[in-house]
């Protein structure tokens, strides 16, 4: 959190990968200290471009026999469930033609049907934000939006959909996408103190930031009366951000002054994709371990990402490979990318299984959702989505199962199951009920 020495950080870089230091009681923020019911964290893990169907598909209902693509999960099999046959109707074309990647990414956590436009951006509220609202005021950070791709360089993202749809899975409301941090170091800086940093000095520095927040809030209020309707909507997003930062600073100061400090060593800036992925996952685990936030979204790439060169032995672009058209070579390369993504998720699950959060292991107090905007990459559809759920949600979810829902079960049923766990209602978007098999 060496934010008042940002330049020093910029030049000296960090000392290694993100490394959570051994957790001493004093370091655990107050909120996370042994509670009757440990806080339940939710993590939403997005990967682009769907799955290769035949290597992903898991055998029949019941005990989980890991498919070829899912082999990397073998060591953490008891902590995960694979769910088949979930469907995102909002992502389907309906009358809107092509653009499945952007539409599927926008609908990924909203289950809404986004308005097809380059500039008139309208989507729905995402499930992570429903849950974040339930936890408001209980943690330093209301919700954390992370990703790996900083946004493509070309303008028209996908067949008439603006890039806001492809680049964001977290939506505060229909017109407010919550943009993500794509630099692990910047994410780390939001809440972690390095070993040589003084908690009281950090708290003092945050106090100065609160002075700034107070002054700019007054600026915004004066400005508000002088704006037109659409300008006011833009200023509203700003005001919401100001209030959220104010709340965050108050909470962080209070924890720091109380001696509850989340400590770690900073990640190296830059690095190849694998290093950045692992750093980002380490930052997520640290955020959950310290209970600075209970809601995280993470985008491994942007919607329909064409990136290449991250999975070993795959030089071709991911999106291009997903349209394999039955070509044997492309199918194999596509499967390698799928496997690589599952490996990274397995690393996350492994880290959560090892990490002590003050109430036991983090994996017991988490529900982590892994999926994509597309089911079958080649067919561009939104049914039979690849879905993995990790964690035991405070004893509510038993692992090691393959849950086979009826075909075209709304994925909103899974999200409603999540909101229901935090008293956020048993309905979400187009849900038709709860996915009771998960918790039975």
């Amino acid at each position, binding site marked *: 959190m060496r934010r008042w020495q940002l330049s020093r950080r910029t030049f000296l870089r960090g000392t290694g990968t993100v490394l959570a230091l051994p957790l001493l009681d004093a370091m655990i923020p107050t909120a996370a200290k042994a509670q009757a019911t440990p806080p339940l964290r939710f993590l939403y893990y997005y990967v682009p471009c769907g799955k290769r169907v035949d290597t992903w598909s898991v055998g029949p209902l019941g005990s989980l026999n890991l498919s070829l693509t899912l082999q990397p999960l073998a060591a953490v099999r008891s902590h995960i469930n694979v769910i088949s046959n979930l469907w995102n109707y909002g992502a389907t074309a309906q009358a809107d033609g092509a653009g*499945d990647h952007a539409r599927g990414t926008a609908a990924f956590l909203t289950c809404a049907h986004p308005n097809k436009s380059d500039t008139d951006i309208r989507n729905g509220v995402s499930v992570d934000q429903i849950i974040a609202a339930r936890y408001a005021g209980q943690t330093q950070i209301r919700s954390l*939006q992370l990703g790996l791709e900083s946004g493509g360089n070309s303008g028209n993202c996908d067949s008439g959909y603006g890039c806001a749809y492809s680049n964001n899975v977290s939506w505060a409301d229909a017109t407010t996408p919550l943009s993500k941090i794509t630099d692990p170091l910047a994410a780390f800086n939001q809440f972690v103190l390095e070993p040589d940093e003084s908690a009281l000095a950090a708290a003092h520095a945050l106090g100065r930031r609160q002075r700034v927040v107070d002054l*700019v809030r007054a600026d915004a209020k*004066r*400005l508000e009366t002088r704006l*037109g309707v*659409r300008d006011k909507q833009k200023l509203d*997003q700003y005001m919401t*951000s100001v209030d959220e930062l104010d709340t965050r600073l108050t909470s962080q100061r209070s924890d720091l002054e109380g001696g509850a400090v989340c400590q770690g060593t900073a990640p190296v800036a830059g690095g190849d994709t694998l290093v950045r992925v692992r750093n980002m996952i380490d930052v997520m685990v640290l955020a959950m371990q310290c209970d600075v936030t209970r809601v995280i979204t993470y985008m491994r790439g942007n919607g329909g990402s064409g990136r290449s060169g991250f999975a070993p032995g795959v030089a071709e672009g991911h999106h291009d490979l997903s349209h394999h058209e039955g070509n044997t070579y492309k199918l194999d390369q596509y499967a390698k990318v799928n496997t690589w993504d599952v490996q990274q998720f397995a690393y996350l699950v492994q880290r959560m299984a090892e990490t002590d959060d003050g109430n036991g292991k983090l994996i017991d107090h988490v529900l982590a959702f892994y999926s994509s905007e597309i089911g079958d990459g080649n067919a561009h559809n939104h049914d039979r989505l690849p879905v993995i759920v990790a964690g035991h949600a405070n004893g509510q979810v038993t692992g090691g199962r393959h849950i086979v829902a009826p075909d075209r079960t709304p994925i909103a049923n899974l999200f409603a199951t999540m909101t229901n766990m935090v008293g956020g209602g048993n309905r979400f978007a187009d849900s038709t009920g709860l996915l009771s098999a998960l918790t039975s």
Partner: protein
Amino acid sequence: MRLTLAVVCAFAFACSGTIGDPAGDISPSSNDAALCNGPADPGRVTMRRLSRIEYRNTLRDLLGDDVDRIATLPADDRALGFDAIGDVLSTSINHLTAYVDNGFDAALRAMARDRARPAGTAARLLTCTPQNQDDITCFRTIVHGFAKRAFRRPLTDIEKTSLDSALTDTRADGDDFDMAVQVGVATALSSPSFIFRVEAQSGAAEAVEAIGPFELATRLSYFIWSSTPDDALLAAAENGSLKTPTVLAAEAQRLLADPRAQSLVDHFAAQWLGLGLLADAEPTAAEFDEELRAAMAGETKALFKYALEHNVPVAELFSAAYTFVNGRLAEHYGLADVSGDQFQRVALPPGRVPGVLGHASYLTGTSHPDKTSPVKRGKFVLDEVLCAPPAAPPADIDEKAGEVDPNAPKRAQLAQHRIDPTCASCHMVMDPIGLAFEGFDNLGKPRSKDEKGNVVDVVAELPEGERYAGPVPLAEALARKPETVACAVEKIATFALGRAMKRTDRCSLNAIAEQTSASAYGVTDLVVAMATSRPFTSRQTNQ
């Protein structure tokens, strides 16, 4: 060449799915003539947040900030090909956190630089030396002076009082004068008056109002510099002269002559002419590396820079019989006698396509990692050269696609696009244009056989009966089309205004073009005409 209002693009006409797009694009319609009888509707721009590039440039110009802070901010969601469209630029806590942190850091570094500056040079921030830790007069000189430049307008009394509280409050917290300056600077750099390009309501009863002088100065500098106005431009706003069209035009010319106008090349032209596609391209060929990517981008930038500096007719971007290469690109193209990193003007070698459509940047940016894509190449021409974007493909595309022999010539493979009429309407335009460029591989190198060893066939036959023997006559014909000029004007306006062009903007866009007909729509003249145009200098009041 004279532009007419209701021209219907021969290319785009066949791709009928785009006409009358409900999103409100400016596809021509027979009713346009009637629209232009009265004063043109200037439209209304949604308040624009600074893009990451604008933010970086602005900190550089305000403080001499030498840190590239782009990575600290979330990416800007693009639309309409650009990253500065008001409607889609959103703000979240991740932005605000970065603004505040960067504000403290930039102030700290600026103070250090000021204290280490050579004697006799002006301070960027520390414009006075405090007599003591509570020197409010000095604090005001520094912080009010800075905030005025950051807000791009004079401060109100209430804003001054508010900033003054940074000194008293910071001192009360036990911090020193320097820290109070940091708080003041961070406040200015996090304020909505800095982050947004605010254009406040005047409360006027009329339907259309002039943009205020400071707001106009801001529009001008972010258009041409992607950065904040300088002192001279703010002075022209303050003394009222900027509203005079001749002064405004002179200021636009002055800004264009400044090195900061390079942002029109790096930011506007790069986004328009496909350098974003090039940046995202991932060719698998071993000879492709970042140096080659940069050289490819450099060629297109050099052409646009030349056009901007010499007021070259805008259509010449697609017909120039010359180009610019450095050593690496010359080697790539097989040209002799050019070495080093500098780009030099050379005559086009025989067989190369004139203008941007002959550039490796276009030919690579519109290709797959391991092969060319005639569809993408054709689509680029419709999107960026003619502003006649094809309708999105239908959703059930995979069902419509038949069996294809992957080893057949691309022309035969693409013929399946013509089978289904919903596909054919656009592909019968896109595909032939793209196929004309098959004589260049996915890195833009000439070839006679495609990836599968088939002899390439570069004839372009368009649905309206136009037939071109190859990419050279096709590019020359494109450059002669009035739609190409109209499209360039539309791109400039979209970037300058940060909003989608509507059918009602057609009259203003035509007026901009007409104004530059003497130079055959020279690029420099177009920029100045844009800056003095009705939609740039006025707006609707009622939204």
